[in-house]
């Protein structure tokens, strides 16, 4: 395709959002090679359809929408467990830990490894994972997240709530397995 100042300027602006797209792709695909392919294809599609981008609107959200739509096109028909979320009920980690005698922040949150938190996020079904990525990681408003995902704000809120319940359950399970807390009602401070 012929190089043009307008295209170069658009590409440069789009590339300022590469970190967001790459992180999102990595969390969605859980594979660096697939993430790079997805991001590259998303950028190529963005360049092809740059005329449809409205100047002054949220380019990061626009690019993320292209990327996640490509992801869903590619992974359509994936396993059922990838799109559903077990009902963990109202799992409130704070209350669970407090009831077991731990100081929830000092004794538990401060001891969770980043890699375990990432793992817990990656275990969420993609429909829920992408909401956590947009709102919790990238700081999108509910409105921008809803626009990006093409769903009502209420859906963003309910998916986010359920995703957080599942995340808290996963982190609690990890805290138990790793000995950060004990199920018998006491907690243990690791050395």
């Amino acid at each position, binding site marked *: 395709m012929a190089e043009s100042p307008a295209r170069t300027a658009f*590409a440069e602006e789009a590339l300022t959002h590469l*970190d967001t797209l790459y*992180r999102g792709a990595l969390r969605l695909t859980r594979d660096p090679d697939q993430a790079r392919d997805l*991001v590259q294809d998303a950028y190529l599609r963005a360049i092809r359809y740059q005329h449809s981008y409205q100047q002054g609107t949220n380019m990061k959200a626009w690019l993320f929408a292209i990327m996640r739509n490509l992801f869903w096109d590619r992974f359509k028909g994936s396993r059922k467990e990838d799109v559903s979320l077990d009902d963990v009920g109202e799992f409130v980690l704070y209350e669970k830990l407090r009831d077991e005698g731990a100081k929830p922040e000092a004794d538990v949150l401060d001891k969770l490894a980043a890699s375990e938190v990432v793992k817990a*996020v990656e275990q969420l079904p993609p429909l829920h994972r992408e909401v956590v990525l947009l709102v*919790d*990681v990238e700081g999108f*408003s509910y409105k921008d997240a809803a626009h990006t995902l093409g769903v009502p704000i209420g859906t963003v*809120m309910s998916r986010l709530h359920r995703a957080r319940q599942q995340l808290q359950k996963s982190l609690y399970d990890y805290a138990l397995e790793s000995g950060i807390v004990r199920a018998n009602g006491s907690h243990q401070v690791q050395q």
Partner: protein
Amino acid sequence: MNCKDCSEKLDRFVDRELNSTEVLELQLHLESCPDCADQFEFHEHLKRLVRHSCECDAPPVAFRDKLRQLLS
């Protein structure tokens, strides 16, 4: 506002989605209720933890350069 009302607004509070009136009402409750205040602080901390944990991965420099060449 009671603790139940407060709990129902937890997600929207940590996501900065409440309007100024709701924030004010909530802050008044949190000032007088240490349990709710601790719980809200915990969830804000958890949100920060998720963000910081997932922000660690950056695209390889070579990939950024490749994209720049491809798109220019």
